[in-house]
């Protein structure tokens, strides 16, 4: 554990300004700015009224910059509705995924049953498949599953429940893998002692193991919420009514239906990105650690 202290020491002894360092900063700052250019361009376009850009061209000095496009995009397309749709899908999906995959991980990592490794393999491999490999039968399955009175469509198809289920099934493969690795690194003595004292398996899981997994769970929760929020494909295929779509895939419909000018599309697209950006900036550390904890996932 000498690495962090060494680094801290190095940072305190401020190095003399070297030309190589200055050059590096110039390079990095320039590249970073170029990297953000497409996003900045979108912001710039979104801030300008359509009339002005069509008169003067897009690359021109702005006379007016305002948030009209954002408010128009938001109101015209009834975005609140789609944000609520997303919320109704993402929140249960994230919670259920974490709950179910942590149980599998607990089972696999704390008990030495013969099929443990095979079970974990099934979960991990499932998550690595491209979604399109399973979509055709899944689509049929969703159409065939009648759920009268449970979902509005009367089927699994075209319902939030259907999306929640596939997100949970698909993502739990990744989470089970990451969590089982994490649980395996926890000291055995803790659960050992509890079991000898007569604690039940459930208690071992709920009261002893899960609280110790908080860092990993937080990392996964951040990652999952961004992934599920950003989902485009499942909703595109498994939802048919535009009204039922989550925000990310709804935007695809909206841009054709309501948005007539590129500035408005820019504003709409940026609005859908805001929640993930907020989550990312607030929980940057969790997000990055989650990504590298399970780097096996694309």
């Amino acid at each position: 554990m000498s690495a962090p202290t060494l680094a801290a020491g190095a940072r305190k002894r401020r190095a003399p300004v070297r030309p190589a360092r200055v050059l590096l900063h110039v390079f990095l700052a320039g590249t970073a700015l170029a990297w953000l250019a497409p996003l900045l361009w979108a912001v710039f376009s979104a801030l300008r009224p359509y009339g002005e850009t069509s008169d003067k061209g897009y690359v021109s000095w702005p006379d007016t910059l305002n948030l009209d496009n954002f408010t128009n995009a938001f109101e015209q397309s009834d975005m609140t509705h789609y944000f609520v749709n997303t919320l109704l899908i993402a929140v249960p999906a994230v919670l259920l995924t974490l709950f179910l995959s942590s149980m599998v991980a607990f089972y696999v990592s704390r008990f030495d049953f013969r099929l443990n490794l095979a079970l974990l393999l099934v979960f991990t491999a499932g998550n690595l498949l491209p979604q399109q490999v399973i979509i055709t039968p899944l689509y049929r399955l969703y159409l065939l599953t009648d759920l009268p009175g449970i979902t509005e469509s009367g089927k699994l198809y075209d319902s939030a429940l259907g999306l929640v289920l596939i997100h949970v099934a698909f993502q739990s493969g990744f989470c089970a893998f990451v969590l089982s690795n994490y649980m395996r690194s926890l000291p055995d003595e803790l659960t050992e002692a509890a079991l000898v004292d007569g604690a039940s398996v459930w208690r071992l899981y709920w009261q002893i193991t899960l609280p110790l997994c908080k860092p990993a769970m937080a990392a996964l929760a951040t990652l999952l919420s961004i992934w599920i929020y950003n989902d485009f494909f499942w909703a595109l295929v498994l939802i048919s009514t535009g009204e039922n779509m989550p925000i990310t895939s709804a935007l695809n419909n909206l841009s054709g239906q309501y948005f007539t000018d590129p500035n408005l599309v820019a504003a709409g697209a940026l609005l859908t990105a805001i929640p993930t950006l907020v989550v990312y900036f607030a929980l940057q550390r969790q997000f990055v650690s989650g990504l590298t904890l399970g780097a096996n996932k694309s």
Partner: protein
Amino acid sequence: MTTDTTTKSPEAASVPPPGAASAPKRAARGRRRLLTRRDRFTLALMAGVPTVLHVALVWVTALASIALAFTTWDGIGFDSIRWVGLQNFEQLFNDNPQFWPAVQHNIIWFVVLILIPTPLGLFLAVQLDKRIRFSRVYQTAFFLPVVISMACIGFVWQLVYNPDTGLINSLIGANTPGHYIDWIGDPDLNLWAVLVAASWRHTGYMMILYLAGLKGVDPSLREASALDGANEWQTFKNVIFPTLRPTNTVVLVVTIIEALRAFDLVFVFNKGAQGTELLSILVTNNIIGESSRIGYGSAIAVVLLVISLVVIVPYLVATFRKERRS
């Protein structure tokens, strides 16, 4: 605890601490004897419920894809399913004008991702690993595209590529009628235009993976190399890069899977029309298009599945062999 997880490379996470290898196994076996009947029931439920859900929706459907690939079915009623053997595949390989271009584009997708954004991400990671000031700011700038949805990235890049209002054409003066460069519509250009956007995102992803890998490099290695008089490039080439092997494996697998999964960006751009066909798009078109050719769509999915398994199986075998040893 939190900092601990951030510095752990994926490989480190999958390998338990040395020395603890055999003890937990014995303990686990002993523990099993302590279980009551109720405990066993609880455990069966805990593992069973998630497994049923995952297997039913992911594996059963994958197997169903394989089975359906050898049939024709219009999707209406089970009795219209007809066994046709290899007919779907024959048609796909010989008569579908979109199939081979799609395969080719998936390959190009992978080659571009591994040749441009991956080394670039590694390069940026090495620079940012030098503990320079504002490292976090730079890191965030490069990483931002990874956080945004692919669909949104598609919209943002359309603003850049648009023939008459886009940034590029406006800058190079190609935005007047007759002089348009149609980045999205031209079948010779659009794949490359999409790949620029895909690479833009992939670079940040690779950078983060390599940054995590670099954090795991023992600092004493660097010191030893510096004491031996190696310069920066020599140290990287002979000392740092070889230690990044586990990260490189992960990067390779991630990149192949990304190339096979590519969908959202292209769909938002031009729905995979001329020039940007991909296997994933062909499968999806069979579902959301008017034609409901389930057997045929499944055959394309099986091709995609076979290619993915060629990557997934060796990777998992290697990963899990390590796990079994511990």
